[in-house]
């Protein structure tokens, strides 16, 4: 779920600043780890011969106690912070949060960003070849769940020789992974930082995902998920999926403030309207079309289906008759939860459900409900209160490590 871009000039200004800071401090190097052994999946299927892309920042301390795992959401990757040496404008998606001197300070923590299975940013996904058939996976890529991703991440940590994490952190779908970590590997982590997330998706949220999926699947260029061999991309479906997504990541107020009813180019009539049903008339239309076009250029249609399904399926309380408090009994780490008041896709009420479940189990939990205007996107933006609470929480963790870095 991507940062909303401001006007081109402002964007350029910030990217120049961002580049300057990043260039001063953090050069990221993408790495890849191959796994031959089959990973059993929740569905009963398995996947073998896959690879995971990841990046690390900072230095693992001598007793390997300062590692923090970052889990990504829908439209993100292992490129969490910094820039690439040969791509100075390619800034990590959580670079405002993570880096030297930032709230999650890479001078004190060893931070790992990992790209999930099924993604389209480096780790094995539907566009890669299935070693069992020699064909591109396409729609045959196995359905992966949040739990499967966490298992895959745990294998990566095994390979990196990290037994216990200082923290797992994520926002939105990434927050679901952080929460799932506390249930699947409670002994392997000391803290969970869960931002703008939920214990499951409600019906409205699944509905948005389903509309996006139908847009993709009914695109004639989708070819039942095997569009790669036809040399086409279901761009129409991806565009519409992205447009819907974008609407839900923003708040009504921010959209009105940014676009209102402003026309893209008023014509010389009394109202300024073109009186056309198909041309771009309002600025918001132009913005959504632009976002959709951009997204359809780089995102994979099968990945979109897989990731939205993983969102839909996540429901740790399900095995406990819907009792989240029972489900959270297994979690023993300390928690920080953050939500944003104008986020209606992952509303504060959903975070409070998790808080309640943890309180019922007498777990250590802090919860910040940030009164930010930006909707769900707020978790990627610079709100001082949000940044400061996360900074304070990680400072406490760092102090508990005994100053080791």
């Amino acid at each position, binding site marked *: 779920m991507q940062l909303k871009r401001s006007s081109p000039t402002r964007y350029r200004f910030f990217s120049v600043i961002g580049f300057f800071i990043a260039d001063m401090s953090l050069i990221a190097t993408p790495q890849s780890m191959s796994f031959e052994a089959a990973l059993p999946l929740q569905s009963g299927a398995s996947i073998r011969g896959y690879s995971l892309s990841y990046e690390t920042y900072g230095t693992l301390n001598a007793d390997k106690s300062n590692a923090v795992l970052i889990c990504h959401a829908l439209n993100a990757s292992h490129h969490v912070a910094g820039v690439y040496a040969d791509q100075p404008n390619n800034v990590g998606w959580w670079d405002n949060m993570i880096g030297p001197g930032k709230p999650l300070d890479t001078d004190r923590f060893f931070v790992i960003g990992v790209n999930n299975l099924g993604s389209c940013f480096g780790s094995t996904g539907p566009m890669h070849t299935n070693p069992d058939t020699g064909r591109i996976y396409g729609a045959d890529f196995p359905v992966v769940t949040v739990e499967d991703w966490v298992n895959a991440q745990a294998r990566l940590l095994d390979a990196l020789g990290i037994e216990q994490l200082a923290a797992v952190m994520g926002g939105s779908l990434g927050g679901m992974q952080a929460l799932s970590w506390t249930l699947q590997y409670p002994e392997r982590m000391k803290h969970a930082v869960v931002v703008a997330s939920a214990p499951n998706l409600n019906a409205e949220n699944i509905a948005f995902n389903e509309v996006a999926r139908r847009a993709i699947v009914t695109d004639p260029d989708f070819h039942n998920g095997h569009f790669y061999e036809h040399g086409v991309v279901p761009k129409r479906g991806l565009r519409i999926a992205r447009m819907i997504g974008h609407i839900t990541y923003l708040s009504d107020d921010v959209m009105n403030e940014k676009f209102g009813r402003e026309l893209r180019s008023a014509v010389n009539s009394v109202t300024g309207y073109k009186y056309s049903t198909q041309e771009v008339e309002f600025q918001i239309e132009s913005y959504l079309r632009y976002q959709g076009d951009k997204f359809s250029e780089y995102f994979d249609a099968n990945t979109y289906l897989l990731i939205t399904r993983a969102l839909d399926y996540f429901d740790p309380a399900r095995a406990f008759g819907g009792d989240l408090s029972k489900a959270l009994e297994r979690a023993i780490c300390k928690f920080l939860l953050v939500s944003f008041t104008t986020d209606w896709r992952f509303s504060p009420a959903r975070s*409070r459900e998790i808080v309640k479940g943890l309180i019922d189990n*007498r777990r250590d939990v802090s919860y*910040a409900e940030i009164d930010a205007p930006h909707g769900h996107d707020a978790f990627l933006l610079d709100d001082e*209160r949000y940044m*400061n609470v996360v900074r*304070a*929480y990680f400072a*406490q963790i760092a102090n508990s490590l005994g100053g080791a870095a």
Partner: protein
Amino acid sequence: MSDPLIMQAIARLVPNGARVLDLGCGDGALLAYLQEHNGCTGYGVELDDANVLACAQRGVNVLQLNLDQGLKVFADQSFDVVLQIDTLQHLRNAEVMLRETARVGKIGIVAFPNFGHWFNRLSVLRGRMPVTKRLPYQWYDTPNIRVGTYADFADLARKNQLQVLDSFGLQHGQEVRLLPNLMAGTAVFKLQRR
């Protein structure tokens, strides 16, 4: 209320090792004190952003919730002690919160500015709302929307079938047990459900 004498006076009412919920915990100083000196665990509830941050910096568990929306996230009798220290006077739903405090906690401890203090009475007698070190606001900008006395609160507790286990005044950090409604700037009640 981060005056060390007042904190100590409140802390004396809290059993060692108690599970504590501090409603309107401010910067978390009292909770940190109780953790350190009384071996307590628990959470603070706070609405103000700066206070939430101060709690996070201290490393006490803080939950950013609006008390005017109730205590839904807390189960019945799930805390040994629920504190309402200088909180009651800010609440729209002060009576509901008092009942909620007794629902969630085995013991409730409530402290608030006593408008029955002789100095405040004198001020009103002169025709002026009191402005003191304890009540530094003017009538038009005060966050203290519930203006009550030690004696008023005793009535409210009775009305809600709450048993007063102990009650006294605090003045300059000292317990006032003689004529507290007249002699103390702060009223303290220790309560439980009948």
